[in-house]
C-alpha cells in the first residue's frame, strides 16, 4: 500500500470512493471523528488536495520513475509491491474539515530574522555580480524560510530516514502505536513518504512536503502518548540507498523541507559510506535537529550494543556532527529496538521534549542559513585586508606622470630657464662667441618641432600598464567575481584616459614663450651692462690718453677696466648661482602641475570607480558578516 502506483495517476476519480469506503469500513484508526461527518468533508477536501497533488508530487514521482527506468534496468521491486489495497485500511488525517483550524504561524527570533534579512539583502546586492547558480542555494533557503514561516509554528515536522531494512517503518509504527506503514522483508519496502500528525492544523505543512492526503494518518489515540507528542508530524521516508533512484529523490526533496530528522541505522549498516558521506557529513550543521537511533539492538548480543553505539558515536564525531551529550546542544544518539520496544520510550520522551520546545523549525532554518553562508564563503570572504592602499594610489599617480612625461618636462623647463638666465646675465663677449658658434652648428630637430602640437603625446602603453597594475592591486585578495568587477571598472575608466591626458598635458604643460623672471634680474642685467660700460669707459679713457686728448693718468682707467673685466664674469657667475634656486623651483612647479593634472584625471576616471566597486564589496561583505552571525 505504500507505493505510489500508476493507477493513482490515472484514477483520481476513485479517491472519494476510497474515502467513502474508508469511512464505512470504520477501521481501527478511524476513531477520533464521526464517520458521517468525515464522509461529507472528505469529498471536498479530497477534491481540493487532488488538484494540488496533480501538479506536484505525482508529477514528480512520474518523472522520477521514467528517469529511473532509463537508468536502471535491474528491476525495481518497489514497482511490484502489492499496491492493490491502496490507502483503504486507514482513514486519512487532516482532511476532515474543509476549513483548517486557525493556525498560529511560526515566529523566528530576532537573531534569525536579522540573519535572514541580511541574506536577502546580500542576494539582492550580489545579483549583478555573481551568477545565479551561485546564489541559487541562498535563494532556496530564503524561499523555504518564508514558506515555513507562513505555516504552523506549533508543529514540528520530523522525518524518519535511513537505509533499506533499518526499520524506519517499524519505528514509525512503534511511535504511532499502530501499524500505519507497512513493514516487510522485501527491500525496499516503503516507496512513498507517509505522514502521521499528532494534532490538527498541520495540513498545510504536510501539503508542502507533497504528501497526498491518502498517505496522511493519525496515530492511535492512547491519551497519554498523544499528549506527550502533541505537535509532532512524523514522516516515514523511503530508503536512501537502494537501487531505486526515485526513492533517493523523495528523500532528498523532503529532507530539505522538514524541521528535524531521525536517522535510523542498524548494526549492519551503521558505517555505510553512502549514509555518512552523502547525508550526515553535509548535514553536520543540522546536528541540533537530528536524532540518530541505532535500531535492531535486539540482534546484538549483550555488551556488543554498547560497543556499536560507541563506534557509531565515534563515526558521527568524525563526520563533524556535534553530539548532544552532557547537556550540550547537538545530536541525540540512542539505541533502541523497534521490534521489542526496548528504548522506544526514551526516544518518545526525547521527541516529546524536542517538540514541546518548538524550536526545531527555527534551528533548522538557522542551520540552513549557516550552510548557505558556508557555501558562499569563497565568493565573499577574503584572506587579507583589501582595498586600495595609499601606496598603490601614489604609484598609480607616478606611473601616469611618467606616461605624460612630467619629470622630463620639469627638467627641461628647469634647464631652459637656467639657460635663458645665463644667457641674459652673461657677458656680451660670451654671447657673441656663442652666437658665432651656433652659426656653424647644424640645426637639430628642435626648431621646427617646437611649433607643431604633438599627437598622442601620452605613452599609451604606460597608461595601460598603470591601470592594469592598480586594478591588480585593488583586486588582490578579493574573491574572483568581485576582483573581476574591480578590473572591469578600471578597464571602463581607462577608456579615453590617454586622450584626456593628451589634452591635459597640452593645457597644463610648460607655457610656451618666455619664462617668468625673478625680481633681481633687471638689477643683474643692469650691473652686467654697467660692467661692460666700465670696460668701454676705461678703454676709451686709455685710448684718449694714447691719442693725447686727455691728461695722462694710467691708474684710474686701468682700474676701471680691470673692475669691468673682472666684474662681468663675477656677476655672471653669481647670477648663475642665484638662478639655480629659481630654476629648480620653476622646473618643479612645471612638473608638479603636470603630475597633479594627470593624477587628478586618473583619480576621476579610474580610482574613483574602482573605489566605488570596493565599497560595494565591503558593503556586501558586511552583510555577509551579518549572515554568518559573527
Amino acid at each position: 500500500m505504500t507505493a505510489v502506483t500508476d493507477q493513482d495517476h490515472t484514477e483520481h476519480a476513485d479517491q472519494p470512493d476510497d474515502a467513502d469506503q474508508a469511512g464505512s469500513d470504520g477501521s481501527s484508526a478511524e476513531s477520533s471523528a464521526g464517520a458521517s461527518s468525515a464522509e461529507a468533508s472528505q469529498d471536498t477536501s479530497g477534491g481540493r488536495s487532488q488538484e494540488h497533488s496533480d501538479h506536484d508530487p505525482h508529477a514528480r514521482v512520474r518523472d522520477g520513475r521514467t528517469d529511473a527506468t532509463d537508468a536502471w534496468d535491474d528491476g525495481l521491486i518497489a514497482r511490484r509491491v502489492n499496491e492493490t489495497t491502496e490507502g483503504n485500511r486507514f482513514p486519512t488525517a487532516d482532511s476532515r474539515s474543509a476549513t483548517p483550524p486557525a493556525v498560529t504561524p511560526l515566529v523566528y527570533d530576532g537573531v534569525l530574522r536579522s540573519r535572514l534579512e541580511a541574506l536577502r539583502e546580500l542576494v539582492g546586492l550580489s545579483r549583478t555580480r555573481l551568477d545565479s547558480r551561485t546564489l541559487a542555494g541562498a535563494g532556496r533557503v530564503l524561499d523555504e524560510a518564508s514558506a515555513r514561516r507562513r505555516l504552523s509554528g506549533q508543529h514540528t515536522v520530523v522525518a524518519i530516514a535511513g537505509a533499506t531494512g533499518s526499520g524506519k517503518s517499524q519505528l514509525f509504527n512503534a511511535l504511532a502505536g499502530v501499524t500505519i506503514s507497512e513493514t516487510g522483508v522485501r527491500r525496499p519496502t516503503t516507496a512513498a513518504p507517509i505522514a502521521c500528525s499528532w494534532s490538527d492544523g498541520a495540513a498545510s505543512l504536510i501539503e508542502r512536503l507533497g504528501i497526498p492526503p491518502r498517505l496522511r494518518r493519525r496515530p492511535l489515540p492512547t491519551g497519554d502518548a498523544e499528549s506527550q507528542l502533541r505537535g509532532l508530524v512524523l514522516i516515514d521516508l523511503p530508503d536512501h540507498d537502494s537501487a531505486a533512484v526515485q526513492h533517493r529523490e523523495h528523500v532528498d526533496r523532503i529532507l530539505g523541507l522538514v524541521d528535524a530528522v531521525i536517522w535510523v541505522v542498524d548494526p549492519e549498516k551503521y558505517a555505510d559510506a553512502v549514509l555518512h558521506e552523502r547525508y550526515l557529513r553535509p548535514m553536520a550543521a543540522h546536528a541540533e535537529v537530528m536524532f540518530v537511533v541505532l535500531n535492531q539492538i535486539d540482534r546484538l548480543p549483550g555488551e556488543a550494543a554498547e560497543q556499536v553505539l560507541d563506534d557509531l558515536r565515534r563515526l558521527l564525531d568524525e563526520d563533524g556532527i556535534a553530539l548532544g551529550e552532557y547537556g550540550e546542544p547537538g545530536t541525540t544518539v540512542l539505541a533502541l529496538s523497534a521490534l521489542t520496544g526496548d528504548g522506544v520510550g526514551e526516544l518518545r520522551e526525547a521527541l516529546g521534549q524536542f517538540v514541546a520546545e518548538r524550536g526545531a523549525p527555527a534551528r533548522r532554518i538557522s542551520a540552513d542559513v549557516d550552510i548557505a553562508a558556508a557555501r558562499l564563503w569563497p565568493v565573499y570572504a577574503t584572506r587579507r585586508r583589501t582595498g586600495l592602499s595609499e601606496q598603490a594610489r601614489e604609484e598609480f599617480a607616478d606611473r601616469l606622470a611618467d606616461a605624460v612625461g612630467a619629470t622630463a618636462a620639469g627638467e627641461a623647463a628647469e634647464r631652459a630657464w637656467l639657460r635663458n638666465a645665463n644667457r641674459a646675465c652673461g657677458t656680451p663677449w660670451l654671447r657673441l662667441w656663442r652666437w658665432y658658434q651656433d652659426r656653424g652648428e647644424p640645426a637639430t630637430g628642435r626648431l621646427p618641432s617646437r611649433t607643431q602640437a604633438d599627437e598622442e603625446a601620452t605613452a599609451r602603453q604606460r597608461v595601460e600598464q598603470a591601470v592594469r597594475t592598480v586594478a591588480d592591486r585593488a583586486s588582490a585578495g578579493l574573491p574572483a567575481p568581485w576582483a573581476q568587477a574591480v578590473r572591469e571598472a578600471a578597464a571602463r575608466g581607462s577608456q579615453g584616459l590617454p586622450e584626456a591626458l593628451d589634452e591635459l598635458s597640452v593645457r597644463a604643460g610648460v607655457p610656451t614663450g618666455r619664462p617668468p623672471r625673478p625680481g633681481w634680474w633687471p638689477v643683474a642685467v643692469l650691473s652686467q651692462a654697467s660692467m661692460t660700460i666700465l670696460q668701454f669707459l676705461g678703454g676709451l679713457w686709455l685710448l684718449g690718453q694714447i691719442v693725447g686728448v686727455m691728461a695722462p693718468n694710467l691708474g684710474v682707467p686701468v682700474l676701471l677696466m680691470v673692475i669691468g673685466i673682472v666684474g662681468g664674469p663675477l656677476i655672471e657667475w653669481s647670477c648663475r648661482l642665484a638662478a639655480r634656486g629659481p630654476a629648480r623651483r620653476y622646473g618643479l612647479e612645471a612638473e608638479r602641475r603636470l603630475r597633479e593634472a594627470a593624477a587628478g584625471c586618473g583619480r576621476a576616471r579610474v580610482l574613483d570607480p574602482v573605489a566605488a566597486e570596493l565599497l560595494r564589496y565591503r558593503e556586501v561583505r558586511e552583510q555577509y558578516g551579518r549572515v554568518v552571525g559573527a
Partner: protein
Amino acid sequence: MVTLDVRPQLLDALSALRDRVAAARFPLPLAGAPRARANRDELLAQLDDYLVPRLRDPEAPLLAVVGGSTGAGKSTLVNSLVGRRVSEAGVLRPTTRTPVLVCHPEDHHWFSGMRVLPDLTRVWVPQQDPTDDLLLPGENPARVLRVETVETLPPGLALLDAPDIDSLVSDNRVLAAELICAADIWVMVTTAARYADAVPWHMLRTAKEYDVTLVTVLDRVPHQVVNEVSRQYAALLTKAGLGHVPRFTVPELPESAWGGGLLPASAVAQLRTWLVHQAQDPAARQEVLARTAYGVLDSLKSRMPALAGAAAAQYAAALRLTAAVEGAYDSEHTRVRGRLQSGAVLAGDALKRWRAFPLDCTAGELLDALVESLSALLLCAVTAADERVDDAWRREPAAAAPELAVRDSAADSAEHRIGLAVRRWRRELEEYAEDEVRELDRALAPDPELVAALVATSLLGGRRGRMAGESLAERIGAHGALRLRDRAGRLLTEHVERVLHAERERRLAPLDALDIHPEPQAELIAALSVLQKER
C-alpha cells in the same frame, strides 16, 4: 566449451598493452579525467593482478574473492568455509581492514611471491590481538595482504576475504575493488537487509559487464523469511540478466557474525561444495578460468577505446590551452609591431626629452628615456597577453590543473627580464654606433652616444622621429645613416621577437611539463588491435 589456450604472442601483446595503459596519463582536470584515471588504475590492476599472471600460469590455484558491503558477513563466511578463524569478524564496522588470503599449504608458493597482487606486502604472522588494529587506525594496514594456510581447504583453491566495497575508509574501497579484480571467481555477499542496495548492484553490473565467473551469496537471512527473500532476490537477479548466476543462501544463526563465531558446516556446505567442485573438476575449472579470462579480455574492447578517448580529450584540451597562449602572444606581437611603427615609444617622458634635445637634454638621457619607454611597451604587451591567456583559460576546465596554476613569481620577474633584454639592445646599438663613427675617421666625428640616441629616436619615433634621421644623415652621411638604421632596425626586431617568444615559452612551460601528446591515443588503440589479432 571454451578452453584457455595461451600463445606466447598473446602474452607479448598483452604486456605491450599493459605498458601502454601504465603509460597513459590524464593530468588535466577535465570532466571525464577522474573517471578515466580510475578506469586506468582498475584496468592496470586487473591486468597486473589477474590477467597476465593467469594467462602465464593457467595451472595456478583458483582464487575466489569474497566481496560485499560492510557487515555482510564476509569474514564469517570465509571462516566458516575453511572451518577456522582466519579472518577476524566482529560487530564494529569496518571489520576487515587487512585482506586475508587463505589457501592450502601446498599452494602457498603461488601466493607468497609477487605473482599476483604485486602491490601488496605479504605478512605471514597472524595478528595477535585484533584490538590493536582497532586502536591504531593511523597505521595504514591497507596495503598489506595476510596469507594464511589451512589444511581444510582443498589444493587448487584459494579464498580471499576483501574489505568492504562501500567502506567509510576510502582506501579500503579502492583496495576492495582491486582485490575483486584479481579474482577468478567473484563471490558477492549480500544480506537480507541489503540485497536491494545500490552499491552491491553496481558491483554486480560490473561483473556482468566483464562476464566473469560470478556467484552470489545471500547471507544472514532470518529463518522465517528465507523463502520470500530469496525469491525476491532471484527475481531481481533475473531481471538484471543475472538469472543464471549460482545463488546460495546462508541463514542468520545466533552464532553468526555477532559473536564472531563460525557457522555450522551445514550452513555453508552448498557453497563449499560448489567452490571445491570448480577447483577440482578439470572441466569445470577450465571453464571457470576461460570464462573470467576471456570476459576480461573481451571487456578490453570497450575499455581501451574509452581510455583512448580520454587520452584524446586530454590532448585536445592541451591543444586548446596552447592555442590560447599562442593566440594571445601573437596578437600582442602584432600590436607591438604596429605601435613600434607608429612611434608609440617616443611618447611621454621620451618625447619630452626629445623635444628638449639637444639644448636641455643630453644624448644619454634621451637614450635612457627611450630604453625605458621601450621596456614599458614590451612589459605592457606581455602582461596584456598574460591577462588574455588568463581570461581564455578561465573558461577552460582543463586550466584548473594545479601544475598550471603555479606561476613564476609574476610580473616583477618579467619586468626584470625585459629590462635586461632592452638594455642589451641598447648596448649593442651603441656598439654599432661606435663602429659607424670609427669608420668615418674624420676629425669632427660626432659623439657615438649622440649617434646612438639619434638612431634610436629615428627608429622608435615613427613620424615624429624623422627629424632625428635627417640630423643623423647630416652628421655621418646619408649612406652611413641608412646602413646604421637598417642594422639597428633588424636588431630591434630580433630583440622584440626574442623577448615575446621567451615569455610565451615561459607561459607554456608548465603545460609542456605535463607532457601531453597525441601518441597515447593511437598507441592504446594499436595495442588493442594487436591483441585482437593474436587471440
